[in-house]
């Protein structure tokens, strides 16, 4: 019935899904449509972009094709669905951006926060620009997103920018299709937007606030500053006194601190950057990149004590740019929290709690809606390993290999907690929420559940959780009233890798970890398993040793060494002596610990790889205590610096209950008896674990099991170990995977839990 005069004219409804909100997609569509002289409109719906377009068929076809091929850099087009409409006659009304419609669309991609783009950074320092030195400059290609969003669709009215009324000039830019701030939702300028405030010796606003903060930092002071995803503590990274004070305030005696430098060139002066690292530093996510740094002398030795690596990042907000430009020196920029609590996002909380500890608080009046720590990544052999997944990355969808009709919430672990939900055929892993020991963290966790479910418009009806009853996340799951699926910790670790890397057949999982609850009630952490997305079978493990005093043994690697010395599982490897270590501890402590081990007083046993690294660090005299998770292992890896290749130490496998078990006693004996340099012994220990891994995997695979190996667990944050294991297993014909976007540590547990729960909820 098409009237003759409409012949050749088509009308379509195009739905674009993927990461298409908060990335300048509608302005892009608008410009494209105008270029092709199409009529119609574009809007954000739930999580998609919906376009109605009318025009000549050829023009329409080209328009549709260009939607994916020329999409804005920050976007990720997953799908372009086209449906024909009946073309309505009449004169063209032009093309418009119309108000967003809210809908129960399951495919929602809340956009991550984006680092200040080059164009905005240029304007920031251009005296002729009207936003010269304005600390909240942004555009459609950069600026805050998820951290200020209340809900989707992404529109200013549903962000914390809602209360700022655009001035005429900003509104003009916002409405001008030719402007790069066309529909930049957080658009602002000094006349109409957020403003800085300084609370220190007196109160100051705007440029005065900034200069007071700069003055304090210039003289070695410590400030709390409102960043993008939370408050940060900032001080001069070259000043021992300043860094010591920051460490005292945070109660963070040894854990390395991240350093922000003004430019990539500055970063190169601190660290040997390869191209991948340079690319990561300048990416819109702007993570902290852990880099090899032989030039640490320009920093205080307290920034990364005893390490040859440092976490470096570049300014990612205009405020960071202004500070770094003014100070022109590396700054320690670290999360603003106290003693392991979550990063503070509230202005009052920051002034009440951080305020008394610092010389001033540099805040502003744009509220933070969602807590995002700085993300941390590390490059190993050209692959980016995500160590902490938060600002710039989360939330974003990951693969769900076996879809489910249940809606699953995965509760995660206890430390480095993060949540995941399933939606449609994907898993969305939420941002890092930190350790669940504090009341603040538990509150943040509960809020995190509401946020993640709300943002993705899902109502979970199944909750996946760890087998450890003491985890706050497990308790949360129990109290949730939802149907529950308990998932073994290390199964979750290796499945996280397999699912992300697309391993869709059974595989051999190697989980080297601190501790996780096994399915037999003992603690595990050095596990070889045959696994798929539903189940696993333990095919190999490390020998058990007691943890004298439970968690106290984790804080005291020296005790762990005594655990192996006096209580290791007897696998036939004999015994070893540790006279030096015992001398350091003194007879009273040694005797009591020995007695505890003999009597089994608070001595849970674990088959942990992480604890073995701890024991070795203590036996080598590297450290007897550990002030942060994995410190002993980190120092042990750092101790290998300068040793390229090293022969293995003695080791043996035993067989228990039909599976291969690594007996570490011969290794430990060799370590206590050698008079080689510590660096060499440390490197030889790494080589030993590589060989042991190959032997355990080979043993597991001897019945014709798969040749695909997936690594998981926090021990694989060790670059030397990852390299060695990949290379050695590769030579044996195995394909080896490690997760990239999903943290290999407990930050990835929720993803593994979600994948397993989905598989189990679906009939085979």
């Amino acid at each position, binding site marked *: 019935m098409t009237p003759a005069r409409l012949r050749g004219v088509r009308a379509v409804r195009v739905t674009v899904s993927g990461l298409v909100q908060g990335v300048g997609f509608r302005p892009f569509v608008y410009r494209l449509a105008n270029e092709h002289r199409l009529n119609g409109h574009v809007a954000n719906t739930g999580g998609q972009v919906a376009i109605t377009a009318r025009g000549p068929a050829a023009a329409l076809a080209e328009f549709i094709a260009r939607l994916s091929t020329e999409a804005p850099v920050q976007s990720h087009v997953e799908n372009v669905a086209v449906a024909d409409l009946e073309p309505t006659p009449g004169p063209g009304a032009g093309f418009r951006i119309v108000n967003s419609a809210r809908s129960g669309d399951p495919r929602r991609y809340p956009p991550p926060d984006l680092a200040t783009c080059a164009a905005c950074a240029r304007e920031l320092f251009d005296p002729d620009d009207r936003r010269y030195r304005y600390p909240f400059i942004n555009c459609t290609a950069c600026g805050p997103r998820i951290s200020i969003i209340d809900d989707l669709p992404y529109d200013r009215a549903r962000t914390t920018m809602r209360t700022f009324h655009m001035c005429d000039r900003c509104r003009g830019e916002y409405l001008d299709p030719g402007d790069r701030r066309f529909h930049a939702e957080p658009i602002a300028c000094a006349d109409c937007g957020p403003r800085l405030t300084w609370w220190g010796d007196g109160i100051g606003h705007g440029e005065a606030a900034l200069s007071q903060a700069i003055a304090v930092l210039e003289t070695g002071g410590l400030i709390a500053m409102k960043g993008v995803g939370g408050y940060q503590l900032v001080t001069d990274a070259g000043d021992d006194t300043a860094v010591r004070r920051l460490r005292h305030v945070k109660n963070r005696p040894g854990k390395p601190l991240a350093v922000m430098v003004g430019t990539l060139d500055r970063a190169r002066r601190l660290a040997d950057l390869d191209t991948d690292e340079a690319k990561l530093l300048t990416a819109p996510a702007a993570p902290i990149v852990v880099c090899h740094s032989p030039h640490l002398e320009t920093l205080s030795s307290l920034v990364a004590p005893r390490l040859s690596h440092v976490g470096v990042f570049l300014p990612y907000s205009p405020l960071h740019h202004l500070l770094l430009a003014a100070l022109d020196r590396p700054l320690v920029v670290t999360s603003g929290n106290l003693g392991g609590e979550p990063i503070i996002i509230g202005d009052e909380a920051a002034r009440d709690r951080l305020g008394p500890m610092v010389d001033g608080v540099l805040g502003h009046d744009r509220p933070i809606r969602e807590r995002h720590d700085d993300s941390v990544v590390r490059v190993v052999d050209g692959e980016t390993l995500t160590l902490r997944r938060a600002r710039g990355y989360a939330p974003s969808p990951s693969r769900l290999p076996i879809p489910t009709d249940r809606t699953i919430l995965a509760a995660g672990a*206890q430390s*480095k907690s993060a949540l995941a939900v399933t939606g449609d055929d994907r898993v969305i892993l939420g941002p890092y929420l930190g350790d669940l020991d504090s009341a603040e963290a538990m509150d943040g966790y509960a809020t995190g559940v509401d946020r993640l479910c709300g943002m993705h418009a899902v109502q979970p009806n199944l909750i996946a959780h760890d087998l450890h009853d003491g985890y706050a996340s497990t308790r949360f799951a129990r109290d949730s009233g939802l149907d529950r699926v308990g998932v073994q910790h290390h199964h979750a670790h290796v499945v996280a890798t397999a699912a992300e890397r697309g391993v869709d057949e059974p595989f051999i999982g190697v989980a080297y970890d*601190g501790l996780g609850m096994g399915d037999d009630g003992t603690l595990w952490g050095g596990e070889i398993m045959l696994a798929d997305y539903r189940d696993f079978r333990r095919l190999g493990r490390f020998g058990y040793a007691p*943890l004298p005093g439970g968690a106290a*043994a984790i804080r005291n690697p020296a005790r762990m060494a005594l655990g192996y010395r006096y209580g290791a599982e007897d696998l036939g490897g004999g015994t070893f002596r540790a006279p030096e270590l015992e001398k350091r501890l003194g007879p009273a402590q040694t005797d*009591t610990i020995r007695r505890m081990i003999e009597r089994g007083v608070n001595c*849970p046993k674990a088959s942990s790889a992480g604890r073995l690294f701890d024991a070795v660090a203590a036996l080598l005299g590297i450290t007897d205590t550990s002030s942060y998770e994995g410190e002993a292992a980190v120092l042990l890896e750092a101790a290998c610096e300068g040793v390229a290749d090293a022969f293995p130490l003695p080791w043996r496998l035993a067989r228990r209950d039909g599976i291969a078990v690594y007996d570490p006693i011969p290794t430990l004996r060799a370590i206590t008896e050698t008079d080689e340099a510590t660096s060499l012994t440390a490197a030889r220990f790494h080589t030993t674990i590589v060989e042991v891994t190959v032997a355990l995997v080979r043993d597991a695979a001897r019945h014709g099991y798969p040749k695909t190996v997936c690594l998981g667990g926090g021990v694989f944050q060790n670059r030397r170990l990852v390299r060695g294991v990949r290379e050695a297993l590769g030579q044996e014909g195995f394909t080896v995977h490690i997760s990239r976007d999903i943290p290999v540590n407990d930050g990835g547990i929720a993803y593994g839990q979600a994948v397993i729960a989905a598989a189990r909820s679906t009939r085979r």
Partner: protein
Amino acid sequence: LGHGSGGQLMAELLGEVITPGLLPPGPMEDAAVLPDPGGDLALSTDAFVVTPRFFPGGDIGMLAVHGTVNDLAMRGAVPIALAVSYVLEEGLPMAELRRINDSVAKAAADCGVAVVTGDTKVVNRGACDGIYITTTGVGRIAPAAAVSAANAAVGDAVLVSGPIGSHGTAILSVREGLGFEAAITSDTRPLHELVAAMLAAGGAGVHVLRDPTRGGLASALIEVAQASQVGIEITEAAVPVPTPVTAACELLGLDVWHVANEGCLIALVAPEAADAVLAAMRTCPEAEHASLIGRVTAGPSGRVTARTPLGTARVVDMLIGEQLPRIC
């Protein structure tokens, strides 16, 4: 000891060892008769099983009396009568039994409470561990008392009568030969006089009394928070812990808040009565070091938090079985 079959041997055991000094003289009756108390009564019973039976600062006999006297006291009651029953393992040295029995009698006398009835059974070797003692007590509720675990109100002061952690640490140390016993002795002691003094000072302002025995301070506080549907915030540094106990707990990897106590109590007291109650406590020898350790908050209901010296708030967990490390 070998009196399992009853008859003459049992009669001798009772007549020569147990009854003298413990029970009032007179004919053996099937039940004791108590005078009309003229008011509300509290009744409590507890079975005592402890290894070792003798420990620094006390023994199982004393513990059995104090435990029940204190349970009565936690409802604001003054004990008026005790019943004591023994389960004895064949082979228990007679001298130990005498010692324990004497200890029960002395502890009861010191508390001013009469043991009015009892029972004794001897079981085969291996069927029990030496001696189990069950004590049942009846107490008269003090007129002013209205204490219950469900009575905590927002704003209440949380008081503790003395240092925590000694009993459990002392027991563990001697049992396992860990070597702390020279420095740490059990705090076992009766608390009913202390409670009387507190009620005299605070009256109905004393809302909750609890003796943090098994499960320690943490469990007692969580139980109260749950029963009263309130939150409790404790200032960690305000909780008195003897230095040797701190050192022992650090070495053993124990949370001192989970360690059992036998001679201290926590009280949740209306803010306006708190000063008077605290002052009254400090005049009692068993509570010289009584301290204000925290406050009752609106919640979340059932949550107990510990404010650390850093200013952070730790969520306090109940001890469930063995505390396995949660760190990965």
